[in-house]
């Protein structure tokens, strides 16, 4: 499992990775590690999926595109069929079944903002079910802070 060095890396490097010639050397120095040790540790954490990625996190909305959370109330008997109909769209970035009358929650993502509503309408045509659009109006999230 994770040792103290792994925890130090996960907790200390969730942002602020340097934009310098030897960024791992710079980041390693701030954590009291050697460059190659840090690279090896990150590779191992990626290998075991403790880190799902190491690199830049992009915001699609700022690229001129958009993300939009959507919700649907899907009759239980049709759930698998509707999940398949929704998931076949490339614009569906993730989709979760949740315990609620609104039981299907998915995110539409596109680098073209106008694509979002068009896709939602298309899903409604395919399934006969209303898609509730829940775009973010305001973001209150203050940085990531997962503790390893």
């Amino acid at each position, binding site marked *: 499992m994770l040792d103290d060095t792994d925890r130090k890396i996960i907790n200390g490097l969730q942002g602020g990775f340097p934009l310098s010639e030897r960024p791992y050397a710079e980041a390693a120095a701030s954590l009291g590690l050697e460059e190659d040790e840090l*690279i090896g540790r990150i590779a191992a954490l990626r290998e075991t999926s403790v880190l799902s990625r190491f690199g830049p996190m992009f915001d699609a909305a700022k690229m001129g595109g958009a993300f939009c959370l959507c919700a649907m109330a899907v009759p239980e008997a049709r759930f698998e069929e509707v999940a398949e109909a929704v998931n076949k769209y490339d614009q569906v970035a993730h989709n979760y079944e949740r315990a609620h009358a609104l039981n299907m929650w998915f995110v539409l993502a596109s680098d073209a903002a106008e694509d979002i509503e068009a896709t939602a309408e298309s899903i409604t045509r395919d399934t006969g079910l209303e898609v509730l659009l829940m775009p973010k109006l305001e973001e209150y999230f203050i940085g990531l802070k997962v503790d390893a």
Partner: protein
Amino acid sequence: MSRIDAMDRRLITATQSGLPLTRRPYDDVGAALDISGEEVRRRLQAMMARGVIRRIGAVPNHYKLGLTHNGMTVWDVDDARISALGPEVGALEFVSHCYQRPRHLPDWPYNFFAMVHGRSAGEVMEKIERVARVLGDAARAHDVLYSKRILKKTGLRLQN
């Protein structure tokens, strides 16, 4: 709205699954795109300044860190007080996503979403209580939607 040019787009495609784990990762990305490492860094810096890049670093997997329980909490918060209270909830260390979203009346009265993570169902419940205390009487009603199953998870992927 800031747009990206063709080279930014190639840079995003080259780095969206991760930076090379090499001593000179930006030079290596540049070599693949036929630009200098310096230009890679300059473009990444500019995208950070415009908010196209939120941050550069480690993206942990909640489940692998033992945060196996999550609840999407939804709240009906007084419109006049949401902008003051939102940042307070967003600053709680166990909240990973926190947004104001539109209501869909009459069925969906909730205008405030906060994703709460914990190591057990009990821990998630405790944390929801802490959110409730922050919102106080500004929250008229709330609900928690637990995830039952991941149906798809690919994330945003730009095509070449």
